[in-house]
């Protein structure tokens, strides 16, 4: 029973990682690629770590699995935010179907908007 659950979680995690790869290859611009990559890879790694913790229910494995999952869930969001900020500041081209572009114009000398 645990074996089937663990194997199923492994397959589900690998499918999500494969989905992240396909999304990164097929999405049209930087920001859509980023959401495919970060969300699917975080959930995929979470499934793999859950499968590992079910396969080896010992303290040393479970502690490492939980700490890897917590660390990835913290850092993936931060890394995605930093890359998105860099891409927006470097005026990365948007998909042609984008409806709203809320990136503000960069002002010289760091002047406040409206001054």
């Amino acid at each position, binding site marked *: 029973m645990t074996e089937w659950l*663990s194997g199923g979680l492994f397959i589900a995690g690998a499918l999500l990682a494969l989905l992240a790869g396909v999304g990164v290859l097929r999405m049209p611009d930087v920001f859509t690629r980023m959401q495919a990559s970060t969300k699917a890879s975080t959930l995929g790694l979470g499934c793999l770590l859950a499968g590992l913790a079910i396969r080896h229910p010992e303290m040393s494995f479970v502690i490492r699995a939980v700490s*890897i999952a917590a660390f990835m869930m913290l850092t993936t969001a931060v890394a995605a935010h930093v890359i998105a900020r860099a891409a927006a500041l470097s005026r990365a081209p948007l998909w042609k179907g984008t409806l709203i572009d809320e990136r503000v114009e960069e002002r010289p000398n760091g002047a406040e908007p409206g001054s």
Partner: protein
Amino acid sequence: MLEIAAAVTLTMLALAAVLTFVRLVRGPTLPDRVIALDLIGVLIVCMLVVVAGSTAQRAFLDVAMVIALISFVGTVAYARYVERVRS
């Protein structure tokens, strides 16, 4: 059963790494390449977790944690670089 699951999982992860590598080579802008490198780091961590599960070696999990840490620092450094080189 679990050996088959581990083999299928590793095959799919390798396929995902190949697709991401195509984006890393083709990627029209620099942030695309940074995203692809970040995803390759996550895929390496995934492969190490699967190998740790199939061989029951704890050391692979320590390696996975260290690679996750270094990949995060590298991604942030690349993002700072992307901000720096914009003209």
